[in-house]
Protein backbone atom coordinates (compact mmCIF):
# COMPACT_ATOMS: atom_id res chain seq x y z
CA UNK A 1 0.00 0.00 0.00
CA UNK A 2 1.20 3.43 -0.89
CA UNK A 3 0.51 5.31 2.32
CA UNK A 4 -1.46 5.33 5.53
CA UNK A 5 -4.04 8.03 5.65
CA UNK A 6 -4.34 8.85 9.33
CA UNK A 7 -0.92 10.35 10.21
CA UNK A 8 -1.04 12.44 7.02
CA UNK A 9 -4.38 13.89 7.92
CA UNK A 10 -3.38 14.74 11.47
CA UNK A 11 -0.21 16.44 10.24
CA UNK A 12 -2.46 18.67 8.14
CA UNK A 13 -5.18 19.37 10.67
CA UNK A 14 -3.06 20.07 13.76
CA UNK A 15 -4.91 20.91 16.97
CA UNK A 16 -3.58 24.43 16.90
CA UNK A 17 -4.82 24.96 13.35
CA UNK A 18 -8.30 23.65 14.12
CA UNK A 19 -8.37 25.78 17.22
CA UNK A 20 -7.67 28.97 15.24
CA UNK A 21 -10.21 27.94 12.61
CA UNK A 22 -12.95 27.51 15.19
CA UNK A 23 -11.98 30.54 17.27
CA UNK A 24 -10.27 33.00 14.96
CA UNK A 25 -8.23 35.81 16.55
CA UNK A 26 -8.40 39.43 15.40
CA UNK A 27 -11.40 38.82 13.26
CA UNK A 28 -13.75 41.66 12.37
CA UNK A 29 -13.61 45.25 11.18
CA UNK A 30 -10.74 47.49 12.25
CA UNK A 31 -11.54 51.05 13.27
CA UNK A 32 -9.07 53.58 11.97
CA UNK A 33 -7.20 51.28 9.62
CA UNK A 34 -4.59 52.81 7.35
CA UNK A 35 -4.25 50.02 4.76
CA UNK A 36 -6.68 47.47 3.46
CA UNK A 37 -6.05 44.55 1.13
CA UNK A 38 -8.55 42.16 -0.39
CA UNK A 39 -7.12 38.83 -1.57
CA UNK A 40 -8.92 36.10 -3.37
CA UNK A 41 -7.89 32.71 -4.57
CA UNK A 42 -9.81 32.50 -7.85
CA UNK A 43 -9.42 28.77 -8.27
CA UNK A 44 -11.14 27.90 -4.99
CA UNK A 45 -12.92 31.11 -3.98
CA UNK A 46 -11.24 31.54 -0.59
CA UNK A 47 -10.98 35.20 0.30
CA UNK A 48 -9.85 37.55 3.01
CA UNK A 49 -9.88 41.26 3.65
CA UNK A 50 -7.02 42.37 5.83
CA UNK A 51 -6.90 45.77 7.52
CA UNK A 52 -3.82 47.24 9.18
CA UNK A 53 -3.25 50.32 11.30
CA UNK A 54 0.34 51.28 10.65
CA UNK A 55 2.12 54.06 12.56
CA UNK A 56 5.65 54.81 11.45
CA UNK A 57 7.09 51.37 10.83
CA UNK A 58 4.94 49.58 13.39
CA UNK A 59 1.81 47.49 12.85
CA UNK A 60 -0.24 48.88 15.73
CA UNK A 61 -3.26 46.73 15.03
CA UNK A 62 -4.70 44.48 12.34
CA UNK A 63 -7.89 42.56 11.71
CA UNK A 64 -9.34 40.41 9.02
CA UNK A 65 -12.61 39.12 7.69
CA UNK A 66 -12.68 36.15 5.40
CA UNK A 67 -14.28 33.05 4.11
CA UNK A 68 -12.69 29.79 3.16
CA UNK A 69 -11.20 26.53 4.26
CA UNK A 70 -9.69 25.75 7.66
CA UNK A 71 -6.15 26.13 6.39
CA UNK A 72 -6.62 29.57 4.87
CA UNK A 73 -8.62 31.01 7.75
CA UNK A 74 -6.46 29.54 10.51
CA UNK A 75 -3.24 30.75 8.91
CA UNK A 76 -4.55 34.33 8.67
CA UNK A 77 -5.73 34.21 12.24
CA UNK A 78 -2.42 32.92 13.56
CA UNK A 79 -0.46 35.32 11.37
CA UNK A 80 -2.28 38.30 12.94
CA UNK A 81 -1.27 37.21 16.43
CA UNK A 82 2.39 36.98 15.43
CA UNK A 83 2.75 40.27 13.54
CA UNK A 84 0.56 42.46 15.75
CA UNK A 85 2.62 45.13 17.47
CA UNK A 86 5.70 44.29 15.40
CA UNK A 87 7.60 46.13 12.69
CA UNK A 88 6.89 46.15 8.96
CA UNK A 89 10.34 44.66 8.25
CA UNK A 90 9.71 41.81 10.64
CA UNK A 91 6.33 41.12 9.07
CA UNK A 92 7.95 40.91 5.64
CA UNK A 93 10.65 38.63 7.02
CA UNK A 94 8.04 36.40 8.60
CA UNK A 95 6.05 36.17 5.37
CA UNK A 96 9.22 35.19 3.51
CA UNK A 97 10.15 32.56 6.07
CA UNK A 98 6.63 31.12 6.16
CA UNK A 99 6.57 30.91 2.36
CA UNK A 100 9.91 29.06 2.42
CA UNK A 101 8.53 26.61 4.96
CA UNK A 102 5.49 26.00 2.76
CA UNK A 103 7.80 25.32 -0.19
CA UNK A 104 9.36 22.55 1.88
CA UNK A 105 12.54 24.26 3.17
CA UNK A 106 13.43 22.25 6.32
CA UNK A 107 15.56 25.03 7.75
CA UNK A 108 12.70 27.50 7.62
CA UNK A 109 10.53 24.93 9.38
CA UNK A 110 12.96 24.97 12.32
CA UNK A 111 13.02 28.75 12.57
CA UNK A 112 11.67 29.76 15.97
CA UNK A 113 10.66 33.19 14.77
CA UNK A 114 7.70 31.47 13.09
CA UNK A 115 6.39 30.54 16.54
CA UNK A 116 3.02 28.74 16.38
CA UNK A 117 2.99 29.09 12.62
CA UNK A 118 5.26 26.06 12.48
CA UNK A 119 2.08 24.05 12.95
CA UNK A 120 1.51 24.63 9.24
CA UNK A 121 4.60 22.68 8.28
CA UNK A 122 2.48 19.60 7.51
CA UNK A 123 0.53 21.53 4.89
CA UNK A 124 3.63 21.59 2.69
CA UNK A 125 3.04 17.87 2.08
CA UNK A 126 -0.35 18.67 0.51
CA UNK A 127 0.68 20.69 -2.55
CA UNK A 128 -2.88 21.64 -3.50
CA UNK A 129 -3.42 23.18 -0.08
CA UNK A 130 -0.22 25.26 0.07
CA UNK A 131 -1.88 28.20 -1.64
CA UNK A 132 -4.58 28.15 1.05
CA UNK A 133 -1.96 28.60 3.76
CA UNK A 134 -0.27 31.41 1.84
CA UNK A 135 -3.37 33.52 1.23
CA UNK A 136 -3.03 35.56 4.43
CA UNK A 137 0.69 36.07 3.98
CA UNK A 138 0.24 37.22 0.40
CA UNK A 139 -2.25 39.76 1.73
CA UNK A 140 0.18 40.80 4.48
CA UNK A 141 3.02 41.39 2.03
CA UNK A 142 0.76 43.45 -0.21
CA UNK A 143 -0.46 45.45 2.79
CA UNK A 144 3.09 46.20 3.94
CA UNK A 145 4.06 47.34 0.44
CA UNK A 146 1.11 49.67 0.37
CA UNK A 147 1.76 50.95 3.86
CA UNK A 148 5.26 51.90 2.76
CA UNK A 149 3.98 53.46 -0.44
CA UNK A 150 1.34 55.52 1.34
CA UNK A 151 3.37 56.51 4.38
CA UNK A 152 2.23 59.85 5.66
CA UNK A 153 -0.79 59.98 3.39
CA UNK A 154 -4.34 59.06 4.37
CA UNK A 155 -5.68 55.52 4.03
CA UNK A 156 -6.64 54.30 0.56
CA UNK A 157 -8.90 51.37 1.26
CA UNK A 158 -10.70 49.31 -1.32
CA UNK A 159 -8.21 48.91 -4.14
CA UNK A 160 -7.61 45.24 -4.66
CA UNK A 161 -5.18 43.27 -6.74
Amino acid at each position, binding site marked *: *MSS*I*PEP*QLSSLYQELILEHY*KRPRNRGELEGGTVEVHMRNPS*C*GDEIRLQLRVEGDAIMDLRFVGE*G*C*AISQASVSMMTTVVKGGRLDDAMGLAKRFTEMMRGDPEAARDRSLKDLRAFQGVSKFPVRVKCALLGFDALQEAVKRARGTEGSPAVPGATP
Partner: protein
Amino acid sequence: MDAPPPVKTSAQTRPRSLSSKLDVERLRRDFPALAQMVNGRPLAYLDNAATSQKPLRVLDALRNYYEHDNANVHRGLHELSRRATDAYEGARARVATWIGASSPAEVIWTRGTTESINLVAASWGSANLKEGDEILVSDMEHHSNLVPWQLIAARTGAKLRFLELDDEGRLILDALPEILDGGRVRIAALSHVSNALGTINPIAEISKLLHEAGVLFLVDGAQGAAHHGVNVRELGVDFYACSGHKMCGPTGIGVLWGRRELLEGMPPYQGGGEMIDRVERDYSTWAALPHKFEAGTPNIAGTVGLHAAVDYLDEIGADAILAHEQALVAYALDRLREVPRVRLFGPSDPGERAGVVSFTVPEAHPHDVSTILDSEGIAIRAGHHCAQLVMRRFGVPATARASFYFYNTRDEVDRLVQGLETVRSVFGD
Protein backbone atom coordinates in the same frame (compact mmCIF):
# COMPACT_ATOMS: atom_id res chain seq x y z
CA MET B 1 -51.73 35.16 -29.69
CA ASP B 2 -52.72 33.21 -26.59
CA ALA B 3 -50.26 33.17 -23.75
CA PRO B 4 -48.47 29.83 -23.72
CA PRO B 5 -49.53 27.49 -20.94
CA PRO B 6 -47.41 27.47 -17.81
CA VAL B 7 -44.71 24.84 -17.80
CA LYS B 8 -44.44 22.29 -15.06
CA THR B 9 -40.90 22.43 -13.81
CA SER B 10 -40.90 18.82 -12.76
CA ALA B 11 -41.81 17.55 -16.20
CA GLN B 12 -40.00 14.43 -17.23
CA THR B 13 -39.33 13.26 -20.71
CA ARG B 14 -38.68 9.65 -19.99
CA PRO B 15 -40.04 7.05 -17.60
CA ARG B 16 -37.77 6.49 -14.66
CA SER B 17 -37.33 3.51 -12.47
CA LEU B 18 -35.13 3.94 -9.45
CA SER B 19 -33.45 0.61 -9.73
CA SER B 20 -30.45 -0.48 -11.69
CA LYS B 21 -30.13 -3.47 -13.95
CA LEU B 22 -26.48 -3.01 -14.82
CA ASP B 23 -23.79 -5.57 -14.10
CA VAL B 24 -21.59 -2.95 -12.51
CA GLU B 25 -18.83 -5.31 -11.41
CA ARG B 26 -18.33 -6.45 -14.98
CA LEU B 27 -18.39 -2.87 -16.33
CA ARG B 28 -15.83 -1.75 -13.74
CA ARG B 29 -13.35 -4.24 -15.16
CA ASP B 30 -13.34 -2.19 -18.37
CA PHE B 31 -11.81 0.77 -16.49
CA PRO B 32 -8.17 0.23 -15.43
CA ALA B 33 -8.10 3.54 -13.53
CA LEU B 34 -10.89 2.41 -11.21
CA ALA B 35 -8.89 -0.57 -9.97
CA GLN B 36 -6.26 1.32 -8.01
CA MET B 37 -5.49 2.11 -4.41
CA VAL B 38 -5.42 5.77 -3.38
CA ASN B 39 -4.01 6.67 0.03
CA GLY B 40 -4.18 3.04 1.01
CA ARG B 41 -7.82 2.50 0.07
CA PRO B 42 -9.54 1.40 -3.13
CA LEU B 43 -10.32 4.44 -5.23
CA ALA B 44 -13.94 5.62 -5.05
CA TYR B 45 -14.12 7.93 -8.04
CA LEU B 46 -17.08 10.26 -7.45
CA ASP B 47 -16.01 13.17 -9.63
CA ASN B 48 -17.60 12.16 -12.90
CA ALA B 49 -19.25 15.49 -13.55
CA ALA B 50 -15.72 16.87 -13.90
CA THR B 51 -14.57 14.08 -16.18
CA SER B 52 -15.29 10.38 -16.58
CA GLN B 53 -12.77 7.56 -16.54
CA LYS B 54 -11.95 5.82 -19.83
CA PRO B 55 -12.68 2.21 -20.75
CA LEU B 56 -10.07 -0.05 -22.36
CA ARG B 57 -12.08 0.06 -25.56
CA VAL B 58 -11.33 3.77 -25.91
CA LEU B 59 -7.67 3.44 -24.89
CA ASP B 60 -7.22 0.61 -27.41
CA ALA B 61 -8.86 2.63 -30.16
CA LEU B 62 -6.47 5.53 -29.55
CA ARG B 63 -3.43 3.30 -29.53
CA ASN B 64 -4.54 1.41 -32.59
CA TYR B 65 -5.12 4.63 -34.49
CA TYR B 66 -1.67 5.98 -33.68
CA GLU B 67 0.02 2.64 -34.34
CA HIS B 68 -1.55 2.00 -37.73
CA ASP B 69 -3.51 4.83 -39.30
CA ASN B 70 -1.94 8.08 -38.13
CA ALA B 71 -1.88 10.74 -40.85
CA ASN B 72 -3.42 14.12 -41.52
CA VAL B 73 -6.98 14.19 -42.82
CA HIS B 74 -8.32 15.44 -46.16
CA ARG B 75 -4.81 16.31 -47.25
CA GLY B 76 -2.92 13.32 -48.49
CA LEU B 77 -3.67 11.00 -51.34
CA HIS B 78 -1.82 8.15 -49.67
CA GLU B 79 -3.20 5.12 -47.91
CA LEU B 80 -2.70 6.30 -44.34
CA SER B 81 -4.32 9.65 -44.99
CA ARG B 82 -7.25 7.87 -46.55
CA ARG B 83 -7.60 5.68 -43.45
CA ALA B 84 -7.29 8.60 -41.07
CA THR B 85 -9.90 10.53 -43.06
CA ASP B 86 -12.24 7.53 -43.03
CA ALA B 87 -11.83 7.19 -39.27
CA TYR B 88 -12.40 10.91 -38.75
CA GLU B 89 -15.50 11.12 -40.94
CA GLY B 90 -16.71 7.72 -39.73
CA ALA B 91 -16.69 9.01 -36.16
CA ARG B 92 -18.69 12.03 -37.28
CA ALA B 93 -21.30 9.84 -38.92
CA ARG B 94 -21.49 7.68 -35.80
CA VAL B 95 -22.03 10.67 -33.52
CA ALA B 96 -24.59 12.10 -35.96
CA THR B 97 -26.65 8.90 -35.72
CA TRP B 98 -26.20 8.72 -31.96
CA ILE B 99 -27.61 12.19 -31.30
CA GLY B 100 -30.27 12.04 -34.01
CA ALA B 101 -28.78 14.61 -36.41
CA SER B 102 -30.29 14.72 -39.90
CA SER B 103 -26.83 14.57 -41.46
CA PRO B 104 -23.16 14.28 -40.47
CA ALA B 105 -22.69 17.75 -41.95
CA GLU B 106 -24.50 19.10 -38.89
CA VAL B 107 -21.84 17.71 -36.55
CA ILE B 108 -18.90 20.06 -36.01
CA TRP B 109 -15.84 18.81 -34.13
CA THR B 110 -14.63 21.14 -31.41
CA ARG B 111 -12.37 20.94 -28.35
CA GLY B 112 -15.40 20.50 -26.12
CA THR B 113 -18.56 22.13 -24.85
CA THR B 114 -16.77 25.37 -24.09
CA GLU B 115 -15.49 25.79 -27.62
CA SER B 116 -18.84 24.74 -29.09
CA ILE B 117 -20.64 27.47 -27.19
CA ASN B 118 -17.99 30.06 -27.97
CA LEU B 119 -18.33 29.16 -31.64
CA VAL B 120 -22.07 29.83 -31.68
CA ALA B 121 -21.86 32.93 -29.51
CA ALA B 122 -19.11 34.47 -31.65
CA SER B 123 -20.26 33.34 -35.09
CA TRP B 124 -24.04 33.40 -34.85
CA GLY B 125 -23.93 36.24 -32.37
CA SER B 126 -21.75 38.58 -34.43
CA ALA B 127 -23.94 38.06 -37.49
CA ASN B 128 -27.31 38.33 -35.76
CA LEU B 129 -27.21 40.30 -32.52
CA LYS B 130 -27.58 44.04 -32.28
CA GLU B 131 -28.22 46.71 -29.69
CA GLY B 132 -31.43 46.08 -27.75
CA ASP B 133 -31.50 42.32 -28.46
CA GLU B 134 -31.60 39.93 -25.55
CA ILE B 135 -29.86 36.64 -24.84
CA LEU B 136 -31.66 34.44 -22.32
CA VAL B 137 -29.53 32.40 -19.91
CA SER B 138 -30.09 31.27 -16.33
CA ASP B 139 -28.53 31.39 -12.88
CA MET B 140 -27.80 27.68 -13.27
CA GLU B 141 -25.27 28.05 -16.06
CA HIS B 142 -21.71 26.82 -16.01
CA HIS B 143 -19.36 29.73 -16.73
CA SER B 144 -18.81 28.29 -20.20
CA ASN B 145 -22.47 28.92 -21.03
CA LEU B 146 -22.39 32.39 -19.56
CA VAL B 147 -19.10 34.15 -20.24
CA PRO B 148 -19.17 33.61 -24.05
CA TRP B 149 -22.56 35.34 -24.07
CA GLN B 150 -21.26 38.17 -21.92
CA LEU B 151 -18.44 38.65 -24.42
CA ILE B 152 -20.69 38.78 -27.48
CA ALA B 153 -23.19 40.97 -25.63
CA ALA B 154 -20.43 43.48 -24.91
CA ARG B 155 -19.44 43.52 -28.57
CA THR B 156 -22.92 43.83 -30.03
CA GLY B 157 -24.81 45.84 -27.42
CA ALA B 158 -27.16 42.94 -26.71
CA LYS B 159 -28.20 42.29 -23.11
CA LEU B 160 -28.38 39.17 -20.97
CA ARG B 161 -31.65 38.13 -19.35
CA PHE B 162 -31.81 35.50 -16.62
CA LEU B 163 -34.16 32.73 -15.65
CA GLU B 164 -33.95 32.31 -11.88
CA LEU B 165 -33.92 29.20 -9.71
CA ASP B 166 -36.41 28.02 -7.12
CA ASP B 167 -35.29 26.75 -3.71
CA GLU B 168 -34.79 23.24 -5.09
CA GLY B 169 -32.56 24.49 -7.87
CA ARG B 170 -35.07 24.22 -10.71
CA LEU B 171 -35.58 26.85 -13.39
CA ILE B 172 -38.56 29.08 -12.63
CA LEU B 173 -40.23 28.66 -16.00
CA ASP B 174 -43.35 30.56 -15.04
CA ALA B 175 -41.32 33.69 -15.75
CA LEU B 176 -40.56 32.60 -19.31
CA PRO B 177 -43.77 33.77 -21.09
CA GLU B 178 -43.36 37.30 -19.80
CA ILE B 179 -39.70 37.46 -20.76
CA LEU B 180 -40.57 36.25 -24.25
CA ASP B 181 -43.51 38.66 -24.56
CA GLY B 182 -40.99 41.49 -24.52
CA GLY B 183 -40.09 40.37 -28.05
CA ARG B 184 -36.38 41.09 -27.69
CA VAL B 185 -34.96 37.68 -26.91
CA ARG B 186 -33.15 36.26 -29.96
CA ILE B 187 -31.51 33.19 -28.48
CA ALA B 188 -31.72 31.20 -25.27
CA ALA B 189 -28.77 29.21 -23.91
CA LEU B 190 -29.57 26.79 -21.10
CA SER B 191 -28.02 23.66 -19.70
CA HIS B 192 -29.55 20.25 -20.20
CA VAL B 193 -28.39 19.12 -16.76
CA SER B 194 -26.87 21.34 -14.07
CA ASN B 195 -23.34 20.28 -13.11
CA ALA B 196 -23.65 21.99 -9.72
CA LEU B 197 -27.13 20.82 -8.69
CA GLY B 198 -27.94 17.83 -10.87
CA THR B 199 -31.24 19.32 -12.04
CA ILE B 200 -32.50 17.94 -15.35
CA ASN B 201 -34.24 20.69 -17.28
CA PRO B 202 -37.38 19.98 -19.35
CA ILE B 203 -35.66 20.86 -22.61
CA ALA B 204 -38.37 19.71 -25.01
CA GLU B 205 -41.01 21.87 -23.35
CA ILE B 206 -38.81 24.92 -23.08
CA SER B 207 -37.96 24.43 -26.72
CA LYS B 208 -41.64 24.58 -27.70
CA LEU B 209 -42.19 27.86 -25.86
CA LEU B 210 -39.07 29.41 -27.33
CA HIS B 211 -39.91 28.41 -30.87
CA GLU B 212 -43.45 29.74 -30.59
CA ALA B 213 -41.80 33.05 -29.79
CA GLY B 214 -39.31 32.68 -32.66
CA VAL B 215 -36.35 32.32 -30.31
CA LEU B 216 -33.41 30.01 -31.08
CA PHE B 217 -32.32 27.51 -28.45
CA LEU B 218 -28.79 26.38 -27.65
CA VAL B 219 -28.45 23.60 -25.11
CA ASP B 220 -25.29 23.09 -23.07
CA GLY B 221 -25.26 19.31 -23.04
CA ALA B 222 -21.97 18.77 -21.20
CA GLN B 223 -23.84 16.86 -18.48
CA GLY B 224 -26.66 15.75 -20.76
CA ALA B 225 -25.28 13.55 -23.50
CA ALA B 226 -23.07 11.58 -21.12
CA HIS B 227 -25.77 10.53 -18.69
CA HIS B 228 -29.04 10.96 -20.41
CA GLY B 229 -28.84 10.02 -24.05
CA VAL B 230 -29.78 12.71 -26.51
CA ASN B 231 -31.95 13.01 -29.55
CA VAL B 232 -31.64 16.55 -30.80
CA ARG B 233 -34.68 16.30 -33.03
CA GLU B 234 -36.92 14.98 -30.26
CA LEU B 235 -35.65 17.76 -28.01
CA GLY B 236 -36.45 20.20 -30.80
CA VAL B 237 -33.44 22.42 -30.12
CA ASP B 238 -31.28 24.41 -32.54
CA PHE B 239 -27.77 23.87 -31.16
CA TYR B 240 -26.45 21.20 -28.81
CA ALA B 241 -22.95 21.27 -27.31
CA CYS B 242 -21.16 18.43 -25.51
CA SER B 243 -17.73 17.12 -24.49
CA GLY B 244 -16.21 13.73 -25.20
CA HIS B 245 -14.28 13.52 -21.94
CA LYS B 246 -17.41 13.45 -19.79
CA MET B 247 -18.71 10.42 -21.65
CA CYS B 248 -15.80 7.98 -21.56
CA GLY B 249 -14.01 9.66 -24.47
CA PRO B 250 -10.66 11.46 -24.55
CA THR B 251 -10.12 15.06 -23.49
CA GLY B 252 -9.86 17.71 -26.19
CA ILE B 253 -12.70 16.49 -28.39
CA GLY B 254 -16.24 17.78 -28.37
CA VAL B 255 -19.26 18.29 -30.53
CA LEU B 256 -21.35 21.15 -31.73
CA TRP B 257 -24.52 20.02 -33.39
CA GLY B 258 -26.53 22.69 -35.17
CA ARG B 259 -29.47 22.78 -37.54
CA ARG B 260 -28.07 22.83 -41.03
CA GLU B 261 -29.74 26.01 -42.26
CA LEU B 262 -28.46 27.89 -39.22
CA LEU B 263 -24.90 26.62 -39.59
CA GLU B 264 -24.97 27.43 -43.30
CA GLY B 265 -25.90 31.03 -42.58
CA MET B 266 -23.16 31.53 -40.01
CA PRO B 267 -19.72 33.02 -40.76
CA PRO B 268 -16.60 30.96 -39.98
CA TYR B 269 -15.32 30.98 -36.41
CA GLN B 270 -11.61 30.60 -37.13
CA GLY B 271 -9.68 30.88 -40.38
CA GLY B 272 -7.01 28.52 -41.64
CA GLY B 273 -6.44 25.31 -43.50
CA GLU B 274 -9.30 22.93 -44.19
CA MET B 275 -12.06 25.53 -43.83
CA ILE B 276 -11.59 27.21 -47.21
CA ASP B 277 -12.76 26.59 -50.72
CA ARG B 278 -10.82 29.11 -52.84
CA VAL B 279 -8.20 31.51 -51.54
CA GLU B 280 -7.30 34.79 -53.26
CA ARG B 281 -5.09 37.62 -52.07
CA ASP B 282 -7.91 39.68 -50.60
CA TYR B 283 -10.58 37.18 -49.85
CA SER B 284 -11.45 33.51 -49.62
CA THR B 285 -14.53 31.42 -49.96
CA TRP B 286 -15.51 28.83 -47.43
CA ALA B 287 -15.68 25.10 -47.51
CA ALA B 288 -19.08 23.46 -47.18
CA LEU B 289 -20.35 22.19 -43.83
CA PRO B 290 -19.02 20.83 -41.58
CA HIS B 291 -15.47 21.80 -42.59
CA LYS B 292 -16.23 25.51 -42.70
CA PHE B 293 -15.98 25.43 -38.90
CA GLU B 294 -12.95 23.16 -38.63
CA ALA B 295 -9.88 25.26 -39.31
CA GLY B 296 -6.50 23.59 -38.87
CA THR B 297 -5.47 20.03 -38.12
CA PRO B 298 -8.20 18.65 -35.89
CA ASN B 299 -8.02 16.23 -32.97
CA ILE B 300 -8.27 13.18 -35.22
CA ALA B 301 -7.38 10.64 -32.54
CA GLY B 302 -9.92 12.30 -30.27
CA THR B 303 -12.69 11.57 -32.75
CA VAL B 304 -11.55 7.95 -32.98
CA GLY B 305 -11.65 7.64 -29.19
CA LEU B 306 -15.04 9.29 -29.03
CA HIS B 307 -16.37 6.89 -31.65
CA ALA B 308 -15.31 3.97 -29.44
CA ALA B 309 -16.87 5.67 -26.41
CA VAL B 310 -20.19 6.14 -28.19
CA ASP B 311 -20.23 2.48 -29.24
CA TYR B 312 -19.51 1.49 -25.67
CA LEU B 313 -22.21 3.72 -24.15
CA ASP B 314 -24.70 2.59 -26.74
CA GLU B 315 -24.18 -1.02 -25.76
CA ILE B 316 -24.89 -0.21 -22.13
CA GLY B 317 -27.85 1.94 -23.11
CA ALA B 318 -28.70 5.50 -22.14
CA ASP B 319 -31.82 4.50 -20.24
CA ALA B 320 -29.92 1.95 -18.15
CA ILE B 321 -27.20 4.51 -17.39
CA LEU B 322 -29.68 7.13 -16.22
CA ALA B 323 -31.67 4.58 -14.21
CA HIS B 324 -28.50 3.42 -12.46
CA GLU B 325 -27.45 6.99 -11.66
CA GLN B 326 -30.86 7.94 -10.38
CA ALA B 327 -30.99 4.85 -8.17
CA LEU B 328 -27.61 5.85 -6.75
CA VAL B 329 -28.71 9.44 -6.26
CA ALA B 330 -31.86 8.29 -4.46
CA TYR B 331 -29.72 6.12 -2.21
CA ALA B 332 -27.14 8.87 -1.65
CA LEU B 333 -29.81 11.45 -0.77
CA ASP B 334 -31.33 9.03 1.75
CA ARG B 335 -27.98 8.23 3.32
CA LEU B 336 -26.84 11.86 3.39
CA ARG B 337 -30.04 12.92 5.11
CA GLU B 338 -28.82 10.82 8.06
CA VAL B 339 -25.78 13.07 8.41
CA PRO B 340 -26.43 15.64 11.14
CA ARG B 341 -27.08 19.15 9.82
CA VAL B 342 -26.09 18.31 6.26
CA ARG B 343 -27.43 20.70 3.65
CA LEU B 344 -28.43 19.19 0.32
CA PHE B 345 -28.81 21.22 -2.87
CA GLY B 346 -30.95 20.50 -5.91
CA PRO B 347 -34.31 18.80 -6.42
CA SER B 348 -35.46 16.55 -3.58
CA ASP B 349 -37.05 14.17 -6.07
CA PRO B 350 -34.29 11.95 -7.50
CA GLY B 351 -36.39 11.55 -10.64
CA GLU B 352 -35.69 15.18 -11.46
CA ARG B 353 -31.95 14.90 -11.31
CA ALA B 354 -28.96 13.20 -12.88
CA GLY B 355 -26.07 11.71 -10.93
CA VAL B 356 -24.92 14.79 -9.06
CA VAL B 357 -25.25 15.43 -5.32
CA SER B 358 -24.07 18.78 -3.95
CA PHE B 359 -23.94 19.24 -0.19
CA THR B 360 -22.34 21.09 2.70
CA VAL B 361 -21.76 20.18 6.33
CA PRO B 362 -21.55 22.92 8.97
CA GLU B 363 -18.32 21.74 10.64
CA ALA B 364 -16.01 22.02 7.70
CA HIS B 365 -15.47 23.94 4.50
CA PRO B 366 -15.99 21.85 1.32
CA HIS B 367 -12.25 21.92 0.58
CA ASP B 368 -11.50 20.38 3.93
CA VAL B 369 -14.24 17.80 3.37
CA SER B 370 -12.62 16.93 0.06
CA THR B 371 -9.12 16.65 1.56
CA ILE B 372 -10.36 14.35 4.30
CA LEU B 373 -12.31 12.16 1.88
CA ASP B 374 -9.26 12.03 -0.38
CA SER B 375 -7.23 10.66 2.52
CA GLU B 376 -9.67 7.73 2.41
CA GLY B 377 -9.40 7.27 -1.34
CA ILE B 378 -12.67 9.04 -2.13
CA ALA B 379 -12.49 11.57 -4.97
CA ILE B 380 -15.11 14.30 -4.96
CA ARG B 381 -15.04 17.91 -6.09
CA ALA B 382 -15.25 20.92 -3.81
CA GLY B 383 -15.63 24.51 -4.89
CA HIS B 384 -17.95 26.65 -6.97
CA HIS B 385 -18.03 24.13 -9.83
CA CYS B 386 -17.62 26.93 -12.38
CA ALA B 387 -21.12 28.02 -11.44
CA GLN B 388 -20.66 31.04 -9.20
CA LEU B 389 -24.21 32.24 -9.89
CA VAL B 390 -25.54 29.00 -8.40
CA MET B 391 -23.41 29.47 -5.29
CA ARG B 392 -24.66 33.05 -4.94
CA ARG B 393 -28.27 31.95 -5.37
CA PHE B 394 -27.94 29.58 -2.44
CA GLY B 395 -25.73 31.86 -0.37
CA VAL B 396 -22.71 29.57 -0.09
CA PRO B 397 -19.14 30.14 -1.26
CA ALA B 398 -18.74 26.51 -2.31
CA THR B 399 -20.22 23.05 -2.01
CA ALA B 400 -18.89 19.51 -1.91
CA ARG B 401 -20.10 17.52 -4.89
CA ALA B 402 -20.24 13.78 -5.46
CA SER B 403 -21.09 12.84 -9.03
CA PHE B 404 -21.81 9.34 -10.27
CA TYR B 405 -21.55 7.34 -13.44
CA PHE B 406 -22.76 3.89 -14.37
CA TYR B 407 -19.70 2.27 -12.76
CA ASN B 408 -20.31 3.66 -9.27
CA THR B 409 -21.75 1.52 -6.48
CA ARG B 410 -23.82 1.79 -3.33
CA ASP B 411 -20.73 0.70 -1.45
CA GLU B 412 -18.96 3.85 -2.66
CA VAL B 413 -21.88 5.95 -1.44
CA ASP B 414 -21.58 4.24 1.96
CA ARG B 415 -17.90 5.11 2.07
CA LEU B 416 -18.72 8.73 1.25
CA VAL B 417 -21.14 8.89 4.17
CA GLN B 418 -18.62 7.19 6.48
CA GLY B 419 -16.00 9.67 5.31
CA LEU B 420 -18.24 12.45 6.58
CA GLU B 421 -17.98 10.81 10.02
CA THR B 422 -14.23 11.30 9.80
CA VAL B 423 -14.86 14.94 8.93
CA ARG B 424 -16.94 15.28 12.08
CA SER B 425 -14.34 13.54 14.20
CA VAL B 426 -11.61 15.89 12.93
CA PHE B 427 -13.66 19.08 13.05
CA GLY B 428 -16.33 18.41 15.63
CA ASP B 429 -15.97 19.95 19.08
